[in-house]
């Protein structure tokens, strides 16, 4: 088993980060192009805790090294991940646990991501992935598979941070514009009320 760990700080409030997290893989993110589809499979609020539990199916298209393709077989082009997330508004945490659906008999990838506030304007992101090659055979091959995956995680982590930063910036702009529009609407409404009263 190999472990990949990473931690980042985003200069946005936890509310902003947790909202933008739902749009992480939208066209505003030009870096995470390996994610081609995101579908919500189930969603519910736990009545006892108020925790929002969501299952998302994430479809990725990523080229694998040739030697790995020959081990895993054809169809390596598209793979699916099940992401189960828990938003705890009382403790202000978002926890996302992801596991690979594709090739699960050959390799097991378990990733845990937590977003939690550092202060009113900053949010910490921690990522921890455990990669285990399950296929029988030489330890050397297992090690190579695990190393390749760790390398991929490292590459995607850098791209992921950059991509999410642009989603956060865009999201802040859009929300500000919407607030502005709502304010203008309110002012117009008040003005017409005053005119009517006069």
């Amino acid at each position: 088993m190999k472990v990949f760990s990473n931690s980042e700080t985003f200069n946005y409030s936890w509310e902003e980060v947790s909202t933008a997290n739902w749009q992480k893989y939208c066209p505003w993110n030009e870096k995470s192009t390996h994610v081609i589809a995101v579908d919500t499979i189930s969603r519910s609020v736990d009545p006892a805790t108020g925790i929002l539990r969501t299952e998302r199916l994430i479809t990725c298209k990523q080229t694998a090294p040739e030697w790995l393709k020959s081990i895993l077989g054809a169809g390596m082009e598209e793979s699916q991940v099940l992401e189960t997330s828990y938003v705890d508004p009382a403790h202000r945490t978002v926890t996302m646990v992801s596991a690979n659906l594709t090739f699960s008999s050959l390799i097991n990838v378990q990733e845990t991501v937590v977003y939690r506030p550092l202060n009113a304007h900053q949010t910490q992101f921690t990522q921890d992935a455990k990669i285990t090659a399950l296929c029988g055979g030489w330890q050397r091959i297992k090690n190579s598979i695990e190393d390749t995956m760790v390398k991929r995680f490292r590459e995607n982590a850098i791209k992921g941070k950059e991509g999410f930063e642009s989603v956060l910036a865009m999201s802040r702009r859009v929300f500000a514009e919407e607030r502005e529009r709502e304010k203008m609407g309110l002012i117009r409404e008040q003005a017409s009320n005053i005119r009517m009263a006069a």
Partner: protein
Amino acid sequence: MSQSLAKQCNEVKERYDTCFLKWYSEKYLRGIGAIDNNECSALFKEYSSCLQVALKERGIDKLLEDAREDNKENDAVYLGRKKCKIRALGPVFLSALMICSRIFIFHV
């Protein structure tokens, strides 16, 4: 918004995602209104029934069932983290304790 795995579900998915995002940012995070996102429920049902067909066709529904089974432990921990040390018993207790201690580390 991101695309759906099934092209035919894109339109309803877009409408649902927009509805959810509004509910999440304006109501859920502010603790306003009903606990469940009722105003988006009808859209989710529509999107879900479209998606189910696509998942079945591709055999992903079976994979999902297995993955859900594996995720039960996480549900126990993350949906009831305050109770995890007291309530869980036996082997579940050990694994829950391990994950709980991991959460503890995250919080330090």
